[in-house]
């Protein structure tokens, strides 16, 4: 098993979400001004960072490196899972730094959500990055039952493209998530909720309306039983 790819295809924000609960070394080849970055990570704690083999000790410089990664989108990457031992660990929370830099990330067209994909508020609890506060204060009250970039561009003085970018950024910092029309857990029934928080703070996910056209349980049970028999009772 492996985690690998190219920042031309995956934003660094997405890569960070995948690796943040793991321990190991992330190699980013020629990703920072043509230089290779190594990040030693242990369950969301950034223990060490090297650029072309030289350690980076200052938190401000590390933030700058991560900012560069989210704004330049270049370089192959691979993650090697392993136990991390560092003599002088940095002890910086990767998710904290990412929250600071992700709001300003540049993103390529194919990474942006479809203009008609609907989003709802996510479970993020905390402060909204300053660069997103104005848009968040306008978008948040409209999230209730789910909104898309198309919906927002009809209600707010922004273009569809601007709203796609904004939705991407709000998602990157954990303020919104794609709506699942089937319900909160995709399969379960959930009641719609409304949230109203002041701008600059966010908490709680707005659930999608429950599905009205799921297959009847009796039918699904029948199919499941038949499938299990077909598979020879292996489960």
């Amino acid at each position, binding site marked *: 098993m492996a985690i690998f790819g190219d920042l031309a295809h*995956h934003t660094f924000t997405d890569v960070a979400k995948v690796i943040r609960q793991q321990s190991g070394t992330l190699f980013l080849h020629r990703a920072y001004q043509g230089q290779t970055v190594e990040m030693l990570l242990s369950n969301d704690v950034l223990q060490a960072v090297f650029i072309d083999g030289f350690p980076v000790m200052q938190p401000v410089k590390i933030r700058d490196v991560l900012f560069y990664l989210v704004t330049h989108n270049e370089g192959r990457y691979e993650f090697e899972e392993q136990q991390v031992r560092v003599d002088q660990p940095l002890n910086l929370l990767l998710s904290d730094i990412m929250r600071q830099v992700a709001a300003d990330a540049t993103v390529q067209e194919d990474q942006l959500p479809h203009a008609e*994909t609907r989003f709802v508020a996510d479970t993020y609890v905390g402060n909204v990055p300053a660069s997103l506060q104005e848009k968040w204060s306008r978008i948040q009250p409209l999230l209730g039952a789910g909104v898309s970039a198309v919906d927002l561009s009809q209600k707010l003085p922004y273009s569809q493209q601007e709203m796609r970018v904004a939705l991407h950024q709000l998602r990157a910092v954990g303020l919104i998530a794609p709506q699942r029309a089937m319900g909160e857990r995709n399969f379960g029934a959930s009641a719609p909720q409304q949230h109203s928080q002041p701008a600059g703070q966010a908490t709680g996910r707005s659930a999608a309306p429950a599905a009205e056209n799921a297959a009847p349980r009796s039918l699904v049970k029948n199919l499941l039983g038949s499938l299990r028999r077909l598979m020879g009772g292996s489960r």
Partner: protein
Amino acid sequence: MDYEQGKPLKLVIAGPVGAGKTTFVQTLSQTEVIATEAEATEDIGKKNTTVAFDFGTLMLGGQELHLYGTPGQDRFNFMWDVLVEGALGLVLLVAGTRPQDFAPARNILEYITSRNPVPFVLGVTRQDSDRVWSADNVAAYFGLPTQQVLGINATDAQSAQQVLLRLLELQLGEGEDEEFVI
């Protein structure tokens, strides 16, 4: 959507080019698959690709399931809403060896599932390859619960059936706490 007894149900298999949709339908189908492949007119990494549908059938407890493998190219976006309407479920496939396809696949999935109340699972194919993303890591990338994402080999019947099994189990709220290994 009315589910009439005896009326065929629809299972939609979607995903980027090369994810294994045609193979998956062929593996799961109990009848000869009608494949509508043509020579690719652009470089998509393989000679032929699906231009309309792959269609197969599966009979379960007297209930017929129609399996529709759908074209993976973005220009077929307009069909997705129609395809999943009233479907028993959606299986999105991505090749674990092709991380460059994850973002477009996630866009497809989120577009469909934010607009249509369709149950879905994500299958990560080519798990027999040496260098491949695991189902758990793909789940993290897609922001999905791990039980909704399965590592599979589309050529293996048991593996393909497990995808359908999981889709049905989750609709009944079963199997949500199980480790899932194929």
